């Protein structure tokens, strides 16, 4: 089926009005030799009922696990029902970017509120309306630092999410910047000495994540000290955004930019997307940051209203000199995050604490298994790394029971053989954890 409402009559009348006798005349500008003369090689059209059948057949080819113990950049959290009801309002989800302020106050006010919540959570003064995801947000922050400082080296902690580092490498390569990795210390935190040794005049930015990929909380304040002393900018990421409910925000510890993945705030796992790039910064960078910004202003009658502001940073005005090429962002995911955060309010702290309790519970249980050891000593939020006799086997055993185990680190960290990064959120019950331990006993 298609969604064109025209009847044959309509078409005839419209052709007459245009002065053509066949639709093909409208395609006359396409050189004949390039006109497609066959049907497209895609499956035959389906009715709505058939489409549903075909799509549920596909969905059923997936196996939904009973439990997922993997976090590693994507987190399973409970999403209050209100979130779906709100983002399901057609006025929100069938709108475009709010170019016409008067009929877009809804999404703009909601995004302004989101920006405010994000700035507060990250301990910064400003936040944009969203980036594509955590990885690209971090990469854009790095590029921005380099451009602002006219420097060409970017330092990143090796404990930053491997895929984030890959994205960073891609963006840096394209712009001709060098990327240097800093090892982690035995604690799992960044090796501060190694960092200090690398800080030279070419360094534009230092990128760390806290909690980092190992779940370990970094000590941001001393890093900020060291970094700022060399006139370098500090970009701090995070893994599970719910950690912001309990952890000292990087902005408050001196970070210049706080970037990361906001998916945890009301957005489902969705096999990796759409997610939500959080981008927050110190006020002084307001006119340099990428992405859309909603600003409050007054209308001609003096009433408060909202507009897309500082658009002169953006591609449609500044073109090649824009602060970024971003145009469509992840507005609906940001709306979901705003609704989620408004729904939880101060309960975000309770939720984060619950994640800590549960994480400690599983960690303690697993560490009592023979041959299992803690790898990093520094405190963690809701992820932790353990060494075990045979990581592959552990995950295979769990998978056989319909459980997705932890993330095997050796793939990205050859030095971390037989280590697994586990994640526990409020979605995992004690019963579930006990079952996991039973299976691995």
């Amino acid at each position, binding site marked *: 089926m*298609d*969604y*064109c409402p025209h009847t044959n009559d309509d078409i005839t009348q*419209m052709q007459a009005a245009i002065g053509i006798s066949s639709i093909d005349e409208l395609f006359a500008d396409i050189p004949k030799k*390039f006109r*497609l003369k066959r049907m*497209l090689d*895609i499956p035959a059209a*389906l009715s709505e009922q058939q*489409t*549903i059948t*075909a799509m*549920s057949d596909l969905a059923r080819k*997936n*196996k939904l696990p009973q439990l997922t113990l993997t976090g590693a950049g*994507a987190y399973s959290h409970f999403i209050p029902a*209100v979130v779906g009801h709100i983002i399901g309002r057609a*006025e*929100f*989800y069938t709108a*475009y*970017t709010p170019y*016409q302020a*008067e009929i877009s106050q809804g*999404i703009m006010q*909601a995004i*302004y509120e989101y920006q*405010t919540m994000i700035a*507060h959570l990250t301990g910064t*003064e*400003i936040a944009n309306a969203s980036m594509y*995801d955590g*990885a*690209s947000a971090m990469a854009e922050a790095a590029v921005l630092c380099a451009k602002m400082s006219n420097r060409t080296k970017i330092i990143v902690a090796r404990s930053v999410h491997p895929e984030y580092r*890959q*994205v960073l*490498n*891609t*963006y840096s390569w*394209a*712009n001709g910047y060098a990327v240097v990795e800093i090892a982690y210390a035995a604690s799992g935190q960044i090796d501060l000495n190694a960092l200090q040794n690398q800080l030279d005049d070419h360094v534009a930015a230092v990128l760390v994540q806290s909690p980092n990929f190992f779940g370990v909380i970094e000590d941001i304040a001393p890093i900020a000290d060291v970094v700022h002393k060399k006139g370098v900018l500090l970009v701090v990421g995070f893994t599970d955004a719910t950690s912001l409910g*309990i952890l*000292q925000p990087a902005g408050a510890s001196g970070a210049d930019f706080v970037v990361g993945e906001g998916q945890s705030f009301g957005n489902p*796992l969705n096999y*990796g*997307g*759409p997610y939500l790039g959080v981008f927050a910064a110190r006020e002084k960078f307001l006119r340099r940051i990428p992405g*859309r910004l909603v600003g409050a202003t007054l*209308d001609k009658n003096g009433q408060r209203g909202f507009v897309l502001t500082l658009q002169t940073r953006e*591609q*449609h005005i500044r073109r090649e000199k824009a602060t970024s090429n971003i145009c*469509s962002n*992840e*507005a609906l995911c940001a709306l979901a995050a705003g609704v989620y*955060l*408004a729904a*939880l*309010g101060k309960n975000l702290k309770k939720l984060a604490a619950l994640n800590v309790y549960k994480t400690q519970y599983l960690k303690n249980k697993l560490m009592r298994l023979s041959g299992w050891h803690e790898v990093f000593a520094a*405190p963690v939020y809701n992820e932790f790394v353990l060494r075990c006799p045979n990581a592959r086997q552990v995950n295979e055993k769990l998978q056989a029971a319909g459980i997705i185990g932890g993330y095997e680190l050796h793939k990205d960290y050859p030095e971390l053989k037989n280590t697994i990064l586990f994640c526990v959120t409020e979605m995992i019950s*004690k019963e579930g954890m006990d079952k996991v331990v039973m299976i691995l006993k």
Partner: protein
Amino acid sequence: MKLIFEISKPGRSAANVTASDVPAISIEEAIDKKYLRSDLDLPEVAEIDLVRHYTNLSRRNFGVDLGFYPLGSCTMKYNPKVNENIAATPGFIGLHPYAPDEFAQGNLQLIYEMQKYLSDIFGMAEFTLQPAAGAHGELTGMMMIKKCFEVKGEKRHLVLIPDAAHGTNPASGALCGFDTVTLRSNSDGGVDIEHLKSLMTEDVAALMLTNPNTLGLFERNIEQVAQIIHGKGGLLYGDGANANAFLGKTRPGDLGFDVIQLNLHKTFSTPHGGGGPGSGPVGVSAKLVDYLPVPRIIKNGQDYNWSDNFPHSIGRVRAFYGNFNVVVKAYAYIRSLGSEGLTRVSEMAVLNANYIKEKLKPYFDLPYDRVCMHECVFSGKRQVAEAGVHTTDIAKRLIDFGYHPPTIYFPLIVPEAIMIEPTETESKETLDTFCEAMIAIAREAKENPQRVKDAPLSTPVSRLDEVLAARKPDVVWKKTG
């Protein structure tokens, strides 16, 4: 309306947290106090207030489901509801991106088949679905071009960009380290071939061309353009944001494009969410397949697997695999329509645009008077000259008639541009009443220009002060008192 912070009251909350079923430990013992935050100042509202707040906000927003949304270049077509339901099924929503491939065969098959469908529809060798939006796809495409020359050992640092191009094109070129050069349009709205010839050197990596271009016009000399670019060893980049114009009619691959990015959220009817998420797949000709981002899907017999093992790849442009849930909707859309349905999309989109063009031609200046594709671009010059009524006034006045305004002041090469893209999902009745509204406004601009300049008259706020917003930026609410 009040802000959510302004209705907050200590002690309220909409979402409760389940009591712990494991021992509650001391957080300070688990995590050194210096790592813990002291305040958490989020809004505190009950569920009823939350729902009313956002529901009432939604009612201050205009979406396609409310009415005609002829925002040129944005392809604001109607999004079939069934695709929303499909994309919401737990089987698609619930999987972790690192779920072992055995758990995700349905998703992998969907992505794989989607790449195949797009490859055929656009005549490209292969597609990646990783980029999150059109501009992200542009960046990805340009990175592949960069990589290609790097591998070949050629140093090309220039990218040609027509003056009519969307702003993301030069910005994407710049964001991956190219210098951009502006290519002029000719009087016909197409590429100025002589100018192109004069610019094309062995320093030029690519021309970023939108076809049909942002004037809604098909590049008649596309063959020659491709020859000129390819002749000097350059590559032809296609901005596929306008793909709604030619589905089943012609294929960029056949036209000579080496790369094309799509905007699934436009062409393949996934709602735009008030600014996103989108999805920006990139298709490449055989020349560029090696440089596609990783991971890519490998089909082994009946099984699908992710693979990172492509040494020439540009790497990743984001984490995981792209905006998967958006792809689900676009996939379902393609499956619903089939070949004939997709072809009809473009036929009707183009029919509708030409119909509007013909109906409004007597009332507004039409800078390029030829058959257009899926959109038509007028100029409001006449209204400025006659009555000092600007395009922005006309746009605001349309709001009072119940329409979302067209795109305005773009493309930049048309003064006072009014860029109307009706899409194929609008009925003749809608087009007719819209044209009547436009004509009425044209008349009003003469007879009562002030009324047009005062518009909109029907909205909760009107004519917001953008200068103030930019001069004293207020992007984060601050508690006062």
